[in-house]
């Protein structure tokens, strides 16, 4: 026990003495939670919309007024000529063009039928379909307002309530996601690199020939990182409560407990990577280049998992961040207790055990 403590102390000194790394390790979650908590959103805002109004009549002016007043876009009117459409998309960052043909109001009043054309820059399908939906809804509103004078009978109304996030902000979705991403990658990188580094520098050899049991060498290495990551969890939660206005709805204690398990899973993954690589470079390529994008994409905070093809949905199950993200959403945003998250928790525990067993098996006491 005493031996273990002195080893833990050695590792702590290693970590604490490297000021630059320490600065990054603590600074990284702070900067990223703040930056991403405020900046990231799936919503389509401030998009440039161009309107070509060949009609210049009451109806078209009214609709243009409604589109401008909605506040979701930057609206700009341009003079017609179809040749300029290509130009608009290419040079001026316009995402959508609304075209009113000549005699728009006239057609509407006399033939009861008028046409509006909407052309979207669909290179980004999300923006294109969202903007088309918005603008169509505004036109439909206008149409409704023209017939509203005669109240319709048998009206079914709806009352919509937005649960958990009434202002539809981006943060409730992204904060748990960024939390999972940062914790996971930092832990995996730290452990894998710290162990491989000792191999590379040759000091691992010295540790392994000491009477100290190899498994405890590993345990001692992991302890400082566990504590450091818990400090990071605390920082993230404080920032999200006081700066992002996103308090923990459920039990903070539970959240910490779950985070500890997730951190252990990530540390175990780092351990596994360290046993199969023998240079810091390849450890890093594995843990950063190999894991950054898959973690972002398969944890479900960017792209809904249920939209993916089945084989990829299966793959997403082995990404620990996916389970942690679900748990954090449940505890932090929805305020649920352990009864609703025990399955996810069990998966994380299972993963940790499997990872540790494999790494211990693979761990070589003799370095070839």
């Amino acid at each position, binding site marked *: 026990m005493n031996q273990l403590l002195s080893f833990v102390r050695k590792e702590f000194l290693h970590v604490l003495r490297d000021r630059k790394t320490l600065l990054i390790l603590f600074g990284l979650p702070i900067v990223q939670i703040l930056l991403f908590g405020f900046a990231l959103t799936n919503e389509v805002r401030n998009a440039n919309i161009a309107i070509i109004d060949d009609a210049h009549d009451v109806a078209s002016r009214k609709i243009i007024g409604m589109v401008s007043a909605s506040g979701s876009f930057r609206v700009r009117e341009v003079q017609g000529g179809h040749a300029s459409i290509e130009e608009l998309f290419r040079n001026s960052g316009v*995402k959508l063009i609304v075209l009113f043909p000549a005699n728009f109001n006239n057609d509407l009043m006399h033939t009861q039928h008028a046409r509006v*054309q909407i052309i979207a820059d669909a290179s980004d*399908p999300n923006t294109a379909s969202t903007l088309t939906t918005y603008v169509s809804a505004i036109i439909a509103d206008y149409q409704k307002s023209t017939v509203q004078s005669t109240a319709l009978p*048998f009206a*079914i109304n709806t009352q919509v309530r937005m649960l958990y996030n009434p202002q539809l902000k981006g943060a409730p979705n992204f904060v748990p996601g960024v939390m999972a991403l940062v914790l996971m990658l930092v832990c995996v990188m730290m452990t894998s690199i710290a162990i491989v580094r000792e191999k590379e520098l040759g000091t691992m050899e010295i540790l392994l020939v000491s009477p100290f049991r190899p498994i405890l060498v590993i345990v001692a290495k992991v302890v400082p990182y566990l504590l450091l990551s818990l400090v990071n969890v605390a920082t993230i939660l404080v920032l999200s409560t006081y700066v992002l206005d996103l308090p923990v709805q459920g039990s903070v204690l539970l959240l910490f407990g779950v985070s500890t398990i997730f951190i252990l899973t990530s540390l175990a993954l780092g351990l596994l990577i360290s046993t199969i690589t023998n240079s810091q470079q390849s450890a890093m390529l594995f843990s950063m280049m190999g894991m950054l*994008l898959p973690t*972002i994409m398969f944890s479900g905070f960017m792209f809904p998992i249920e939209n993916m093809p089945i084989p990829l949905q299966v793959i997403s199950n082995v990404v620990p961040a996916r389970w942690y993200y679900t748990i954090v959403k449940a505890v932090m945003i929805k305020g649920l207790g352990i009864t609703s998250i025990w399955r996810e928790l069990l998966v994380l525990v299972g993963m940790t055990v499997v990872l540790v067993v494999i790494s211990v098996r693979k761990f070589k006491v003799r370095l070839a």
Partner: protein
Amino acid sequence: MRTILFLLRKEFRQIFRNVTILRLILILPVMQLVILPNAANFEVKNITVCIVDHDHSVGSQRLVTSITASGYFKLAHVTPSYHDAMALIEADKADLILEIPQGFDRALIRDNKQTLFIAVNAINGVKANLGAAYLNTIITQYNAQLRSQWIQPARFGPVSRIEIAALNKYNPYLSYKVYMVPGILAFLVTMVAAYLSALNIVKEKESGTIEQINVTPIRKYQFILGKMIPFWVLGLVVFTIGMLVMRLVYGIVPEGSVLLLYSFAVVYIFSVLGMGLLVSTYAETQQQAMFVAFFFIMIFIMMGGLFTSTDSMPAWAQMITRFNPVRYFIEVMRMVVIRGSTFDDIKYHFLTVFGMGIFLNGWAVLNYRKTS
């Protein structure tokens, strides 16, 4: 010139001798490019709805049928109480609750109006908004259908109709792959270039071999060039493989000029390498270099418009994205591949990235000291 050639020989030999790294550099990006774009789909579909039917009338049944028949919604359950439905929302088994009040059908005729309650899980605001909007549309349609059945059509005057003709330019089938593949490729090339260059000089520092170079008459710029050119070549190799994957696996043929893409890639990799080398000259250990590189890569990917549009960010965040080289490469890739933009459309991108490259590389050369 001869000196640089010798340095290049040394660097290339080092790269080719380390087969593990070489394999990782070539395989990891290709694997990700083949798999990941399939997972990227923002389209809001598969919304699961849970219906709380207190009415159990013919009318409520028909409403439920028209919702499930619309194709947008999957019916999770019909539960007897709101409480049960809420449990489904909590367990992520349902996205949306529709509550039909008791006596809905009869009261609609009696009072001439009725209200339905919708509750949406709004953690993902966009999905919530669209889900509610779709459901509202379906209810409105159902409503109109009812009216036309219950009322003599003659009581209505002809209603004027505005027809909306929507056209999706450049990507008529709204395919996400067309959008994501060029972006992900841009990012993978960035990662390869940034990580390798960030680790390189510092690796020589850590193993002490840099001393040997420092005592030779090799000039600083020669040393940096010797470090840079091999990674430049590697970056372009990865880019080329990626372009092939894009062509062969996804069948995406760039609308614009491939030559233009390559010339931009050359300039871009130059500036990313400058950044990596700069990190490398500052760091003392590989570990430090890695964490610094990781820090920037994380910010670059999130603020680069790969997944969420930079236009939607608040003004101060958009300012930050202007200093993000990845943003420019992703934009150029998408513009040239999807829209067929020409040099004239992207000259601003060219200039900015080239400027960044000069600045970063210049700084790296200045900061590299032969004396410690």
